[in-house]
């Protein structure tokens, strides 16, 4: 049958396994995916009957037009890089924490709780304590799927995801109920935080704040852990060959715990940075889907901290592009989610060339 098909279509392209994964393609494929996404953005605008050049400039140039815009881009990239750095630790060990969205919300709730409890105190310890509360809140939320995975073998994917909805409903209850701003005209939100509970700005005239260097620190910490520590090495082995890891006596359950807690703490920190940063209060829609977008960032960044830094900038570009598309092109801002998903599709597709190569096969002799 093979030969039959070859006769009919002599130069049919085939994909063949490479003898070894191609290191070049490992780096090329995110780049290819990014370029294909740009092409995809243009194609979508064309299909929508909009000028593709205008669409491209709204998505990829507008967010870079001046210093303030670039500061906004870095502000947007901060939670994405922070969460993705934590998630990558787990993903490398095949620990699939998909609930960063919920851990983000719980981190935001924990930090808000402190800010509200100490309101008007002006205490200097408040902000550092909120950092700790955010990280602990996110880690505690991630500890639930970790515990249920290690003790009861329950899928961490589904458990962490279910807890996203629970966390969102919890935040909704708080801002509609006990934590609602009494002077807020019944809006579902808390009071604005006092000065001592807000992250200091880095640059006057922008909204870029202290969370940005924190995210960079998290990327460096993730790099040190993954590339330089024995525990990080063990986790990678656990991810690539669980049986081998078991045989070598590497604790697989510990990989689950470290992976989940790293992701949870990072997401919780990002949640804290959102309420103590650009928002200045807790609302129902605090997360803006950063937890899900960070999954894409982690993959597009090749689960490597440097790659994650770059990928978070690209994703932030798509986020802001969506807001700009709403403003200038009268399109729903959810268009950015479409492009974000597209980016991951293209990456997964381009990744085929890491393991395989395309061959235009000459016709085989009939036989």
């Amino acid at each position, binding site marked *: 049958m093979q030969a039959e098909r070859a006769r009919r279509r002599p130069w049919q392209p085939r*994909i*063949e*396994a490479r003898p070894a994964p191609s290191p070049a393609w490992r780096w090329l494929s995110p780049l290819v995916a990014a370029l294909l996404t740009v092409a995809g953005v243009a194609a979508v605008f064309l299909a929508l009957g909009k000028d593709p050049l205008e669409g491209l400039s709204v998505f990829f140039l507008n967010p870079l037009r001046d210093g303030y815009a670039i500061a906004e881009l870095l502000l947007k990239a901060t939670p994405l890089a922070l969460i993705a750095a934590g998630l990558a630790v787990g993903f490398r060990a095949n620990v*699939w924490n*998909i609930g960063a969205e919920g851990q983000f919300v719980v981190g935001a709730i924990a930090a808000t709780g402190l800010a509200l409890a100490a309101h008007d105190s002006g205490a200097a310890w408040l902000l550092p304590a909120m950092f700790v509360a955010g990280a602990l809140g996110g880690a505690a939320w991630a500890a639930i799927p970790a515990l*249920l995975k290690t*003790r*009861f*073998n*329950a*899928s961490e*994917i*589904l*458990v962490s*995801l*279910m*807890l*996203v*909805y*629970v966390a969102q*409903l*919890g935040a*909704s*209850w708080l801002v*509609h*109920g006990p934590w609602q701003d009494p002077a807020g005209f019944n809006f579902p939100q808390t009071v604005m935080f006092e000065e001592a509970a807000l992250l200091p700005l880095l640059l006057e005239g922008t909204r870029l704040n202290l969370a940005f260097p924190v995210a960079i620190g998290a990327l460096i910490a993730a790099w040190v852990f993954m590339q330089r520590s024995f525990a990080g090495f063990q986790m990678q082995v656990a991810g690539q060959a669980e049986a081998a890891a078991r045989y070598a006596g590497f604790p697989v359950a510990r990989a689950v715990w470290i992976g989940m807690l790293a992701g949870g703490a990072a997401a919780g920190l990002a949640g804290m940075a959102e309420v103590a940063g650009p928002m200045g209060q807790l609302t129902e829609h605090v997360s803006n889907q950063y937890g*899900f*977008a960070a*999954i*894409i960032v982690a*993959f597009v960044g090749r689960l490597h901290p440097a790659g994650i830094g770059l990928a978070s900038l690209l994703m932030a570009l798509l986020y802001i592009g969506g807001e700009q598309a709403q403003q200038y092109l009268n*399109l*729903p801002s*959810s*268009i*950015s*989610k*479409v492009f*974000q*998903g*597209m980016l*991951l*599709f293209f990456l*997964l*597709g381009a*990744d*085929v060339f890491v*393991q*395989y190569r395309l061959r235009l096969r000459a016709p085989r002799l009939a036989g």
Partner: protein
Amino acid sequence: MENGLLAAILFATVVAGTPLVVAALGELVAERAGVLNLGVEGMMAVGAVAGFAAAHTWGSAPAGVGAGLLAGAGMSAIFAFLALTLTANQVAAGLALSIFGVGLSAFVGKAWESESLAAVPATRIPLLADLPLLGPALFSHQWLVYVSWLLIAAVAWFLSRSRAGLVLRAVGESPASAHAIGHPVLRIRWLATLFGGAMAGVAGAFLSVFHTPLWAEGMVAGKGWIALALVVFATWRPLRAAFGAYLFGGVMVAQLFLQGSGLQIEIPSQFLSALPYLATVIVLVAISRNRQKIRLNSPVSLGQPWRPDA
């Protein structure tokens, strides 16, 4: 409890369980062929939008179901191309599909956000509908509910009694052996995946065309993920999946009845709304803790890429 209320609760339970059972059966077939598609939530969301748009445009509920089916299948084709043809990581490709689908449905659905549809009338099954309690509870539904019952029977029969079902299960257990005896593994996995997507799309259309005839962003609200959990709960068996789906339907209905009962209970609505998600976690734990059972029942090659020449 008075009969009328009990019948109403049972009726609502069946309605709430229907999208779950349809989506779960589709995913179950895909998983039995060894394909783990985590994109159910996204496929349902796109199916819901497509179904609503078609039903609204042509004023026809069947057109909505057809559009949901095609949209779900189309979405799953993206997954199948990446995960089966290009052997991408199935977990990553499925997640991508969910993120993409939820985003796409929000984007496309914006145009339909303020529209609504005429409700699809119930079809009373003659004679049976006149039974006390069971009549109003089971036999006075919209027609897609009855179709879902046929689907349960068909999938159960297909997997356990038909030759094609046997081949599909063989592909899920051992693709290499199935390939060796001449079965087209990739094609079978593609078809199973398309079927899973089509069913997720129909489940989405049930939500937006039959259950609440409108489209709202976020209306799928995790039902796709619950359907995935149901497959584990069911240990990959169709009848157990149906049982689980109605059990969950019951939990969803219980929280709605509690919210609307005016029983003067001081429980915030958000706590009640969280019940189905918490129930999913509890059920997953209860079923997964028996590792032996999971290992014996889950398709051996689940989630593993396979290529004929690899």
